[in-house]
């Protein structure tokens, strides 16, 4: 009874969710990625392919920019016209930032992408009609559209290869948008176990596929509202606040001496992924 629900809960449904006045409890999944530890080896990306049934599109479609990597490793070198990138490259694993005020959510005409109680940006494949507005409005461009029907494509999923598919993750057919889910199937499984035992998910109990594979442990993932979690400690140590478009630490004149930052923070999307700046030795 929606109208009665509306009238009953009028003041609540006028609150902004989930930032400010509705804090997360008991979960808020978040990440911290240490760019100084990231070596750009691509293990996370492959793990993501394996875990999430991501199609390999092949050369021609990759050329058309139709690749599907939910997690891409970007590399930069801004060398100001120096002859060599003599301070190395900078690698950056980029996946859905699970924004708290996600620009993609508001624009989907069929509400296929919504905010969850755990602070994730859910993408419901079977609800998607493929208007692609979410991707158009994503500042990070981390949403990937199924331009072709990959499950029926012999080059992409030959019969033998389909046996590798993860049964916990939908295989997306043509015409739907997809993106990184923070391995929500693993989160659900962990929550089911925890719920059965009447507790919340413990730190370290659940890992995302990328985090699990990362040889240098650059990716940490966990429950931001759990003070025991590494992610919580990292965010706290770096003084990065979730629902802020400017961090107080950056306002200080002498510089914070901290390296936590979020990408395109000024857009007020409140990403759930904090990056730690890559460090370079000043002595050489």
């Amino acid at each position, binding site marked *: 009874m929606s109208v009665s629900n509306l009238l009953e809960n009028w003041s609540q449904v006028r609150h902004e969710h989930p930032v400010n006045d509705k804090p997360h409890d008991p979960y808020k999944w978040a990440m911290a990625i240490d*760019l*100084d530890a990231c*070596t*750009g*080896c*691509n*293990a996370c*990306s492959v*793990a993501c*392919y*394996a875990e999430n*049934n991501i199609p*390999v*599109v092949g*050369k021609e479609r*990759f050329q058309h920019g139709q*690749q599907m*990597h939910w997690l*891409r*490793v*970007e*590399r*930069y070198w801004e060398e100001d016209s120096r002859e060599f*990138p*003599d*301070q*190395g*490259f900078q*690698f*950056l694993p980029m996946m859905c930032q699970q924004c708290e005020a996600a620009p993609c959510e508001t624009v989907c005409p069929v509400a296929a992408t919504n905010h969850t109680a755990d602070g994730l940006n859910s993408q419901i*494949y*079977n609800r998607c009609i493929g208007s692609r507005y979410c991707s158009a409005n994503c500042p990070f461009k981390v949403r990937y559209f199924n331009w072709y029907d990959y499950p029926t494509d012999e*080059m992409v999923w030959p019969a*033998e290869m389909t*046996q*590798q*598919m*993860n*049964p916990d*993750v*939908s295989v997306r*057919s043509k015409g*739907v948008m997809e993106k990184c889910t923070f391995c929500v199937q693993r989160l659900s499984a962990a929550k089911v176990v925890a719920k059965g035992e009447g507790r919340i998910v413990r730190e370290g109990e659940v890992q995302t*596929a990328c985090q*699990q594979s990362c*040889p240098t*442990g650059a990716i940490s993932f966990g429950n931001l509202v759990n003070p025991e979690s590494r992610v919580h*400690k*990292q965010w706290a140590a770096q003084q990065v606040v979730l629902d802020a478009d400017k961090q107080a630490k950056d306002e200080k004149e002498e510089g914070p001496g901290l*390296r936590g930052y979020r990408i*395109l923070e000024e857009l007020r999307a409140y990403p759930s992924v904090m*990056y730690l*700046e*890559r*460090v*370079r*030795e*000043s*002595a*050489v």
Partner: protein
Amino acid sequence: MIDSGSVKQLAGHPFDRRDFLKVLGWSGAAVALSGCGNTSIEDGKETVVSYVEANDYMVPGIGVYYNSTCAQCDAGCSINGRVREGRVLKLEGNPDSAINKGKLCGLGQAGVQHHYNPDRVREPLLRNGNKGETISWDKAYALIAEKLSGVKGEEIAFLSGGVSGHLKALLGNYLDSLGTKNHFVYEAVAPGVVRAANVKAYGVEMPRYRFDKAQVVLSFGADFLGSWVSPVHFSQQYAQFRKGVNGQRGVLVQVESKMTLTGANADRWLAVKPGTEGVLALGIINALGIATGEVAELVKGYDRARVSSETGVAPGQIDKIAALLKLRSPSLVLAGSAAEGYAHGSQNAAAIHLLNQVLGNVGKTVEAPVSVPFPQMAPAKGNTAALKTLNDGLAAGKYKVLFNFAANPVFTAPGAFKFKDNLAKAGFKVAFAHYLDETALQADLVLPLDSAMEDWGTQVPEYMTEGAQINIQQPLMERLHANTRGMGDIVLTLIKQRRADEYKAFEDYYAYLRGAMLQNKGALGGGGVDDDTFWNETLTQGIVKLAGSTGTLTAHAAAAGLTLPAPAASDEQYPLHLIPGVTASLRDGRHTNQPWLQESPDPLTTIVWDSWVEVHPKKATELGIVEGDIVEVTSKTGSVKAQVYLFPGIHPEAISIPVGRGHDAMGRYAKGYGVNPFQIMDAVFDAATGELAMHETRVNIKKTGQRVLVVKDEGSAGALQMGRKIAARVSTDQVDLSKEV
């Protein structure tokens, strides 16, 4: 017979897992196809997955994990395979392994695509003209016996990649039974020269490196984060090294002519003129000014000005590095493939080792290795010198029967070897193969192998940490194709042809393996437990950890005999060095047909599915080349055509083409993508070891006038962030790392 698996949560419970490994009702298993499969409530359309008999732990919908060993490279990472409804879904690292500690690289994870690859060989094939004819295994074995009869031992050759463990022992026995000593262990990209140089300098082939203890790492072209020796392990040490102690972050300086993944992560990346790594090492010793005696004498001539002009490194930079090395100790100096890939590679490596010794790192960050107490199981290390010997033998028509296992020399031998032509001179060629690769296509008999996810085995890694270990490889699922066989089983059958009595007790390789392990139970740490418990425990762990025997480390790098040649004169006709790029995911090209690896962008260039020629932008401007131009790269041996990628991470006097692509066989995901730089490689060898000098090939490049769009992940902004704060960087003096979590 009880053989038991290794279920994480059910350790130690013996059970019959055959049924579990069986693929169950795949068509009905719950892979969800949104919009494609079942999209509404359906009744009575699908069949439920059900068992005849089920053990307690077999619960539909819940994955079980088995421990095994990654076979994608020789590093010996332990893996943890997730199995559901009888299918292996995903490979993860085994947290109990000291080598990879629960982590796994992209190459390792792609192992499932090796297993499920649609282009695997499924039946034994016998050459009939240009076609392979399916024959039965019995026939195949009989044929081998027939071909071997009356052939002298020296007329038989066995070519293989690196092997270790019980397979190596069994194989050794088989070769023994054939009376041949011609076991050629060949790896296309292996640190052969460094091993030899290590023996000279440290007394061991491969010491244990302690990146985590070092404060400075000075690496001469060792791509330890990408493809060198044991990258997953080194990456973990690297992470600790970066974190440092009390916020004192480790500093990485990489010296090489073509940037590797490690170079891309360096605090300072120095592009030296190809082949002058040794000169720079001596220059740094000189700049350190702490050397005495004959070392000081040796480096005396290598003053700043000379070193700078020979290597192209700015004099100030040499001083800075020397100062840093002096200030922060211990450090670690490594010689890698960039240093060893020249005719004077051994000299380069010796110079670099000398620097390490001068800095006093030996014993601190270079430690004595540990080896397994069973020499017959220790890894047979592949190198390229073996291939040369084989090739010479083939050219002379010495061999009547040639076996080939886990090597693809037709693809990886330098073009100058003309290996394919020489191979044709061998009488009868047997290939044990997963795929019809280039070498298998030349064979007379192709025997299909089980994948690493179907086969039993043991493996001893070349590079071990925290004591010695024997890795167990066990099936994660039932055979995908009924007519493939494990290599161990094949060798066992073959050896039974020769020494039936000795081996008749072993029904199959599994029985052999189990017997052999149980025989040495005491030495393997299983003293005092009964056989089954020990065996189950072993399989559950996937690793047998041993104390092992520690080698002795010496520090006798010496100046004596160290002479670096004068910088090579410029070659008018072939002005550029060709540096074959070894990437972390493709290595020597044996896994190119795994689509995840093909579609993983190369970390440095972000190119996928294709080969490229890395050209420095300065050089490109000189030659009038832009990105996407197809150029013809010509060496004395041959030429290839490939697209150009302008890349600042390469010395202007060099170009680089990655190895691994350019297959003309190996199935749908490998064939026809890219070019194979091995084809144009000259046959130049390291003077001291006879190893192939991979970086010595000189080439020239010519525009062909064609241009293509480079298929890559980066956009038109390339590596620029256009003023946005995306991948940010901070220098150490602006940040306090000590307080970090």
